[in-house]
Every structure is written in structure tokens, then in C-alpha cells.
């Protein structure tokens, strides 16, 4: 497809127009993109549609959307088990919020030390921190389970401690790294000025770094929340009592029952469980998309 384009004719005089890159006919490209959007959105729309179909329609109507909206699946799903889904949502919310606080606090402290303070062996610790980035959680889960169980924390009075303790100890190295990168961008002159005014490392942290790190904290908070809300593996391993279940673990109860009649309620609860993440997506769409391309965060 070697077509003669305007740029091959007159590249010498005018400065190259930045708009001429992998061109393609705009209409054709738009059509392809719309087709891909349809493929990408189809499962999600089908999910919402099915959650609103009556039992009878789920079997008979193969269409994307219900003919008659029947919200009954939502009420049925909400109280499908001995424990109401309200409880599961509360549990998930609590775990996610505490994780956000824990990650924010502990990672910020560690990042400040790595980014700004001089101390012995700092380089070595930093390398270790980067190394833990690559540790798959599946490697740690067995010994951590044994450890927390030996300490009596699994299924104990506060069943979420095994999920939360690591988050308050800056084990999410990715966020530490993100904040270190961010803090390196904060001008050192500000530290110097504060130091001349008599501030020590704590004062500088409190009055310079903490307020200026807001954007990094917000990014950490959003991704912390979404990841924890979506997380399944750790919650599956550490939660053993029905009333302690979080939403993802509770959703698997539907699969256990496998009866066809549970499909509608199962979809309804699935839709609800994705709602917080979806709302975050709508609210922070620009930030999320930019966030990953500057830092490599995965969804």
C-alpha cells in the first residue's frame, strides 16, 4: 500500500505536521474502533441486562437486554444466604478503607526515608524493596497463613488482621516505589528552606513532604481501594466464617449452589460488586489512565 501522500511531495519546506503519523482513513478507523468498543462492552452490558431479566427470561430470551425490567434478582440476591449481602459489602468496605489508610501511611513514611533521608545501608534497603516488587503473593501466602494462624489471628476475634497487618507495614512495595519517584520531583530547595528555619527531618516531612505528596497519596488510595476490593486470593485464604466474608468470597457461594435459579441473583450481586470500582472509574478515568502510563500500574 504505497500511496503517494502529500508529505512525500512537500516535505522540505513546511515543518512536518505532527498530525501525519500512522494515518488511515478517519471514517474507517472510527468504524473499527466502534466495533472493538462493541466487543469490549458486550459482556458488561450482557451482565447488567441478565441481572434485570426474570428467571423465565434468562432461559428464553437470548437478547442482550430484558424485555421487561424485573429488579427482583437484586432483592433475591441480597438475602440469598444466611448472611445478607449488606454484611458482605460492609466487610469489603471496611477491609478496603483500612487498607487505603494503612498503605497511605506506611508507604509514605518509607518513601520519605528512601527519597530524602541519608542513613547507613539506605542503598541496600532500597534494592531489597525493589526486589520485593517481583515477589508473587502466591509464594508468601502459605507461610503467612501458617504464621498468622499460629498467632491465633485466622478466624479470630478480628478476622481481618491477617489482611490488614501487612498493609500497615508498607509491604505493597509498588506504592513505596511510586511515592519515592514522586518525592524525587519535589524541589530540594524547599527542604533547605525549612531546614534553615530550624525544621528537622520530622518537621520537613510534616510541613513540606506530606502536604506536597497529596497527588501521590490520592493515586495510592484509588488503586489501593480498587485492588483490595477486587482481590480474591488473600481474602479466600484468610476468611473462614460466613459472616466475615467479603463480597468476592461471598460471590463464590453462588457457584457452589450451581442451581440454575441462582443465575439471576448471582448476576445482580456481581453487578453490585463491580459498582464501586465502576464509580471510581467514572470519577477518576483520566487520572487512572494517565496513572498507568506514567507508572506502569496494572488494573
Amino acid at each position: 500500500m504505497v500511496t503517494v501522500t502529500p508529505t512525500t511531495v512537500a516535505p522540505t519546506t513546511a515543518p512536518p505536521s505532527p498530525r501525519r503519523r500512522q494515518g488511515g482513513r478517519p471514517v474507517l478507523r472510527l468504524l473499527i474502533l466502534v466495533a472493538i468498543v462493541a466487543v469490549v462492552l458486550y459482556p458488561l452490558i450482557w451482565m447488567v441486562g441478565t441481572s434485570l431479566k426474570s428467571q423465565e427470561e434468562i432461559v428464553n430470551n437470548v437478547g442482550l437486554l430484558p424485555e421487561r425490567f424485573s429488579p427482583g434478582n437484586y432483592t433475591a440476591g441480597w438475602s440469598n444466604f444466611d448472611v445478607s449481602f449488606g454484611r458482605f459489602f460492609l466487610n469489603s468496605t471496611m477491609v478496603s478503607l483500612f487498607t487505603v489508610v494503612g498503605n497511605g501511611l506506611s508507604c509514605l513514611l518509607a518513601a520519605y526515608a528512601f527519597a530524602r533521608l541519608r542513613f547507613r545501608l539506605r542503598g541496600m534497603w532500597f534494592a531489597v524493596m525493589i526486589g520485593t516488587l517481583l515477589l508473587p503473593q502466591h509464594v508468601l501466602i502459605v507461610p503467612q497463613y501458617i504464621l498468622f494462624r499460629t498467632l491465633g489471628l485466622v478466624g479470630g476475634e478480628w478476622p481481618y488482621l491477617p489482611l490488614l497487618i501487612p498493609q500497615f507495614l508498607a509491604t505493597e512495595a509498588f506504592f513505596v516505589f511510586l511515592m519515592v519517584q514522586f518525592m524525587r520531583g519535589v524541589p530540594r530547595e524547599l527542604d533547605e528552606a525549612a531546614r534553615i528555619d530550624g525544621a528537622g527531618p520530622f518537621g520537613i516531612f510534616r510541613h513540606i513532604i506530606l502536604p506536597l505528596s497529596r497527588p501521590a497519596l490520592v493515586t495510592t488510595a484509588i488503586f489501593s481501594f480498587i485492588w483490595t476490593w477486587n482481590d480474591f486470593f488473600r481474602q479466600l485464604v484468610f476468611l473462614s466464617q460466613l459472616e466475615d466474608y467479603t463480597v468476592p468470597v461471598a460471590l463464590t457461594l453462588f457457584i457452589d449452589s450451581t442451581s440454575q435459579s441462582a443465575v439471576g441473583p448471582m448476576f445482580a450481586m456481581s453487578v453490585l460488586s463491580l459498582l464501586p470500582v465502576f464509580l471510581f472509574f467514572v470519577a477518576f478515568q483520566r487520572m487512572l489512565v494517565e496513572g498507568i502510563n506514567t507508572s506502569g500500574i496494572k488494573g
Partner: protein
Amino acid sequence: MALTTAPDPTRRGPGSARTHADRRGPGRLRHSEGLAGYVFLSPWLIGLMGVTAIPMLLSLYLSFTNYDILTPFSEVEWVGLANYERMFTADPSYWHAVRVTVTFAVIAVPLKLAAALGVALLLNRAWRGVGLFRGLFYLPSLLGGSVALAIVWVNMFNRDGAFNSLLSLFGITGKPWVNDPDWALETLMVLAIWQFGAPMVIFLAGLKQVPTELYEAASVDGAGRFRQFRNVTLPMLSPVIFFNLVLETINGFQGFTAAFVLSNGTGGPVDSTLMYTLNLYITGFTELNMGYASAMAWVFLLAIAVITAIFFSTGRFWVHYSDGEDR
């Protein structure tokens, strides 16, 4: 998760750190800063020791035992290399899980990256509405490994699912894909490919870095669009391709949630979705063979380290950094 290389403070020896501190201000601050450093670092250090390092050592020890969580530590029996021996020579389901995982990664990861790159090329131009498309394509990645999404996916490829009703529009009679051992893993691959949004965004960032002049020069030389792609876009994008490839491969090996949901935690039908991590979970938490599961975890860790190392050593041959010595 992220492999971005940072300016690395490890390069700075203690000596140079001192001169640095001296340059910055009064030397009397140095001592308090060293102390403060460790105060600020203490949560992380406690976490590193308590939640990461000691558990890992414990896990290494347990991998040489027959620990099953029910017997107390004092009665744990040292079995030497028996777990590793069993894994490599006497456990067909282990090798099956390895095969399933490698198959999944080898097929799904390249297709996902191809989709991501293809769509990124389509979106690589500023026009009204491009942000909306980017956001919509990213959405599946964000919903990512959630159970809800896996549930929807499994049902979509059921006998009565949306996929078959779509096929029936073309007069094709589908089958219950997720219950078919020959197709269950493929449905999981399609799920992974569907979530191409995250690498796509990274590709888009990479494409923005390619200087427009290179395309101009190439087209002056008479290169068509395909040759421009092959000789300009691909080499310039190779660091980003490399980054995505490493990241997605490691992610691919760790797939768990969808396989768990599809098979209700069994790896079925007929072990067709027995991913490595699911096998590890079943061994450790269903069958309570914690010693054996620890051995599996360590082999997993080593395997990922080796694969990453292989990527980095072969990367030299095809990854071009514009500021590097090659080319």
C-alpha cells in the same frame, strides 16, 4: 508489578552520601537524619522481616518437611528433598499444571499484547473523543481479576450463554465451552485478551515518544505504512514492548481467580484449567499439604526469576534504547 528502572541510590556509596550531606547543610544534622531515616523506615523494616523475610525462610524450611498445619511444629518431620522429588518425578498433576500455565501464558500473552498494540496504533492521534475510547478499553483491565467478572465470563461461555446466542445468529450451534476440557482454558485466554487495556495505555505512552521526524524521513525514503511500522515504530517501541512482555508474562503465570471461578476451585473440567497457583492453593489449603505447597511456591519463585532473567538476557538483541550504545 512494575519494572521501571529508577535512578538507583545503591550506586551512591556511603562516602559519596556523606559529601552530599555536607554540601547540603550543617554537618550536625547528619546524625539525627540517620536516626530519623530508620524511624521512618521502621514500619517497612518490620514488614520486611515479619511478613516477608521470616515467612519466606519458614517456607523454605517447610518445603523440606511434611508439614500439614494440623500437627504441631515440634512434631514436624524433615523429609529432605522428598517434596521436590515428588514434584518432579511422581506427581503427574504437577506437570499437568505446569503445562496448563505455560500454554495459557504462551498463547494469551502475545495475543493480548498484539491486541493492545493494534488498538494503541488506532488511537495514537489526537482527535475529539479519543479519551473516551481509551477509557472504555481500559475498563476491563480495571475490573481485572474480580470474581464478578469471572462469573460473568463463565456464564457467557455456558451452553445458554451470550456467546452461543451470538453464534446462533450465524446459524452455528455452539457448545458449553466452559464444560469442555478442550475449550475451558481457551475461554480463560479470551478473558485475558479482552483485558488488553492496561498494556494498551502503556503502548500509547510509548508511541507518543516516537519522533514524528522519523516517519517523515521514512516516507521521504519511500517507505509505505507497513515499512514505517516495521522499521520505525517497532524498534522505537521495543523498550515498551519489552516492559509489557515481562509484566504480562509474570501476570499470566499468576492467573488464579478466573480459573478458580470457572472450576469452582477444582481446576476442572478434567484439570484443563489447573493453573499453577490454583494447584498450589488446592495442595496447601484444600489438601493441607503445606510442606509440599511450600516446595511448589519456591519452584514457582525460581521459575519466575529464571524467566525474567531469560527475558533480560535476550532483550539485548532486540530492545533498542535510543540513548543506549546499541545501534
